C-alpha cells in the first residue's frame, strides 16, 4: 500500500509544470507584460524595433539589478528604503575618486566595499538592536543623502574612465548593462533556489523562530541580505554613473520606489517568505515599459503620471480578478 503511495507522490511531483504555472501568482503579471507588449506593438511602429527593445532593456537593467537584492530583503520580511541613496552615494564616490585620478580597479573595489559597509550598518541596526527595517533604512537613507551631497558638493562630478563601459558600453547593439542584468538575475535565481543560504532565506521569511530551531543563524542571514542588497546598489551606482560619465546629488533619488514596485509587482509578499526570483525581471520590465510607452505614444504631459498609476493597478489586478472569475465559474458548475 505505502509503496504505491510513494510512487504516487513521486509521479505527482513530475506532473505538468505548465498547468501549475497558469495557477501561480506569477502568471498574472506575465499576462500583463505580454498584454502591454502586444498593445504597444500595435500602438507604436517603433515599439518592436531593435533600437527600442535595447532601450527598454537598458532602462530596466538598473532597476532589475537592485531588485534582485531587494527581493532577498523582502523575502526576509524586511525592506530597504536607503538603496536609492546608496546608489547615488556610490556613484558620487566613484566619480570623485576617478576624477581625482585613482586607478579604476581600486575605485571599483572601494565603491563595492563601501556599499557592503552600508549594508552592514543597516543589517546590524536591524538585527542587533531589533529596530524595524523601515525606520532604520529611512534613517540611514538620510545620512547617505547627506554624505552624497557632501562629497558631490551639489555639483555634477564628471569623469572619463574605461569603467564607463559597465554602464554605457555596448557589445554589438547590446548594452553592457543588460548583460550585467542577466548575470545578476541568473546568479540570483541560482542563489535563491539552489544554495543553502538562499533556501534558508525563504525559511527565515516564513517563520524566524522555526528557522532558528533548524539551526539557521537568522540574524547573520538577515545581515547578509542587506549586505548583498547594498553591494548590488553600489554596483548599480557604478553602472548609472558610468552611463552618464558623471554623478551628481540627484543620482538615485526616488529609485527605491521603482525597485520596490518592481519586486512587489513581481509577486513578492511584503510579509516575506514568498516570491520567485525570476519574476523581478517581469516586474521591472513592466515598470520600464510603462515609462517607455508614454514617451513612444506621446501621451500629453499631465496624463502621463495618471496613466502610470492606472497601468500598475491593472497589471497587478489581472491575477486576482482571474481567480475570482475562476471561483465563480466553479460555483456555478
Amino acid at each position, binding site marked *: 500500500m505505502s509503496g504505491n503511495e510513494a510512487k504516487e507522490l513521486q509521479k505527482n511531483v513530475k506532473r505538468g509544470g505548465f498547468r501549475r504555472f497558469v495557477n501561480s501568482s506569477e502568471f498574472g503579471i506575465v499576462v500583463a507584460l505580454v498584454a502591454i507588449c502586444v498593445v504597444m506593438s500595435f500602438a507604436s511602429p517603433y515599439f518592436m524595433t531593435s533600437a527600442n527593445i535595447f532601450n527598454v532593456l537598458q532602462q530596466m537593467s538598473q532597476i532589475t539589478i537592485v531588485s534582485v537584492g531587494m527581493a532577498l530583503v523582502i523575502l526576509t520580511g524586511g525592506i530597504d528604503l536607503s538603496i536609492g541613496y546608496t546608489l547615488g552615494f556610490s556613484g558620487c564616490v566613484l566619480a570623485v575618486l576617478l576624477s581625482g585620478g585613482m586607478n579604476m580597479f581600486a575605485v571599483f573595489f572601494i565603491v563595492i566595499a563601501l556599499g557592503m559597509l552600508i549594508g552592514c550598518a543597516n543589517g546590524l541596526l536591524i538585527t542587533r538592536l531589533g529596530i524595524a527595517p523601515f525606520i532604520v533604512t529611512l534613517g540611514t537613507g538620510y545620512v547617505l543623502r547627506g554624505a552624497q551631497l557632501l562629497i558631490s558638493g551639489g555639483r555634477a562630478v564628471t569623469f572619463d574612465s574605461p569603467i564607463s563601459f559597465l554602464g554605457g558600453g555596448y557589445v554589438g547593439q547590446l548594452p553592457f548593462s543588460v548583460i550585467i542584468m542577466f548575470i545578476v538575475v541568473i546568479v540570483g535565481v541560482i542563489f535563491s533556489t539552489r544554495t543553502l543560504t538562499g533556501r534558508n532565506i525563504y525559511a527565515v521569511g516564513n*517563520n524566524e523562530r*522555526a528557522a532558528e530551531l533548524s539551526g539557521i543563524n537568522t540574524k547573520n542571514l538577515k545581515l547578509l541580505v542587506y549586505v548583498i542588497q547594498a553591494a548590488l546598489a553600489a554596483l548599480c551606482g557604478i553602472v548609472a554613473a558610468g552611463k552618464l560619465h558623471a554623478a551628481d546629488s540627484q543620482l538615485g533619488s526616488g529609485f527605491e520606489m521603482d525597485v520596490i514596485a518592481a519586486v512587489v509587482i513581481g509577486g513578492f509578499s511584503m510579509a516575506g517568505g514568498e516570491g520567485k526570483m525570476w519574476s523581478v525581471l517581469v516586474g521591472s520590465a513592466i515598470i520600464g515599459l510603462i515609462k517607455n510607452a508614454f514617451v513612444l505614444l506621446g501621451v500629453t504631459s499631465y496624463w502621463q503620471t495618471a496613466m502610470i498609476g492606472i497601468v500598475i493597478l491593472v497589471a497587478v489586478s489581472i491575477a486576482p480578478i482571474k481567480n475570482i472569475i475562476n471561483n465563480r465559474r466553479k460555483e456555478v458548475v
Partner: protein
Amino acid sequence: MDTEVIYSIKNISKIFPGVRALNHISFDIKRGDFHAIVGENGAGKSTLMNVLAGIYTPEEGELFFGGKQIKLKSPRHAQDMGIAMIHQELSLSNALSIAENIYENRLPKNKLGLVDLKKLYQDTTSAMKYVDLDYLDPRTLIREISTAQQQLVEIAKALALNAKLIIMDEPTSALTQSEVETLFRIISDLKSKGITIIYISHKLDEVMRLSDTITVMRDGEHIETTAAANMTMQRMISLMVGREYNMETIRDSFVESYTNRKVVLEVEDLCVGRKVQHASWKLYEGETLGITGLVGAGRSEMLQAVFGVDKRDSGTIRVMGQEKKMASAREAIECGMGLVPQGRKAQGLFLNLSVKDNMTSVYLKKMRGKSGLLNLKGEDGITCEYAEKLRVKTPTIDQLIKNLSGGNQQKVIIARWLMNHPKVLFLDEPTQGIDIGAKEEIYAIINDLVKQGISVVLVSSEMQETLTLCDRVIVMHEGKIMGELMHNELSEEKIMYYATGCES
C-alpha cells in the same frame, strides 16, 4: 421530525484543490449529547467542523439546525445561531489582553457606546474562574502566558458565547492532566445545562470515557455513528484505520542497568531565568528519558536552552564528555542533536512553503555538492521516502504545508529531524494532535531509535506515554527537578507526587 436532533448534516461534500476532504457526509447530532468524532489525521474532522461553524462553505449538501435548514454565511452567523467552536490551532491575538481575546468583537459597551472596561474585566474574571484561570489578571497579554493557559483562554472564549452547541476540536492536545480534568469538569457542567458538545480528540480513552455518541470518519467518509455504549476501543480503532488493528507494540525492552552505559549528554546546573533553576541531568546512550511535570514546569525551556536556541544564565553542557558552548541550534545540530519543538505553528512550520521545503530545512545542508550548489535531485526522493515512512497524507510533496491537517503537519516536522539521523533527539510533545495510528508509528520509531543506540528525550504531558515509553523519568516542578524514577518504579502516583512539588 425528530426534536431530539439539534444539528443534522446531509450529504455534505467539501473539495480543496487536489483533495476531496469531505465526501457526502450525513449524520445527526442529538440535543444535549456529548458527541465525539474520531478519525485519523486528515480524515476531514476539522474540515467538517469548519463547515458546521460557518467557516467553510460546502460544495454540496444541506445543514439543518434546530430543524430548520440553514446556509451559514460567516462564523459570526453561526455564533449568532448559537454555535461556538474551539479551534484546533490556537487563534488568539498575541498583543491583546486575555479579556479582549475572550470578548473579541463582543466587548461590553457603556451608555456612551464606549467600551466598558470595568464590566469587561468583571466578566472576564468570572469567565476565567470557570476555567480555573482566575489567578491571572484579565489585562495580561496573551503572549505573556503559556500555551496551555492560552488553550484555556480559548475555551473560555467559546464558553463566553453562551452557545447551544460547542464544537471542541482537540481541546486537550495542549493540556496536561490537571487542566484536562478541569475541562472535563466544565464539560459535565455544560452537559447538565443541556448544551450539546461535539468533541474531537485523538486521546481515545477520553472519548470512551465521556461520550454518549461516537462518529468515526475515514478519508473524508462517514463510517459509522453509534452510541458509545455499543462501541469498544478496539473496534473504534479498526474502523478509523480501516483494518484490524493491534495496538500492543510499544517497547521491546527497557534499559536494565545504567552501570557502564555511556553518557551522551550531561547537563549541569542549568538556569534559565526563573523558568529553570539549577537543573542537572544525564542522558545515556540508547535510552528514552522522559521529562514530565505540570504545565509551566519549565520542561520546554530546559530543552530549548540545552539545544542552544534560548539563552541560559548558567550551566555546562557536555556532549560525549566534551564541554560545548551550545550557543546556537546550529551547534547543537552539529553535535548530532535534534529538537521537535512544542507548538508546531509557532515554532515548527514554514506555513507558506511546501511539504518538501518544510521537511528538508535541516537536511538541506547535507545536500550541498562540491560546487556549493544544492543537489536537488535527491530532495524529492528523500522527501517522498519519509512522507511514506510516516504516512504523511498529502496529494503531492509540493503542496503548501498550511493545507495539510494538523497531524500531518506534525509528522512532517518529525521527518525533518529523522532525516538527519540524530544521535540525540529531543521530542517536545511529539504526539500532540496525532492520530492513534501515527502515534503508534512514532512510538515504533522511538523504539527503533533507541535500539540503534540513539538517545531520546521525551517531554510529554500524556501520562500514558511517559509510563509506557520511558526508561527513566525526571519530574520537574516550577523549574526544579524534583525527582528521578526508573522504569520499574514508575507510577502515576509517584509522578504526581513529584510534579506537585512535594519534597522527596
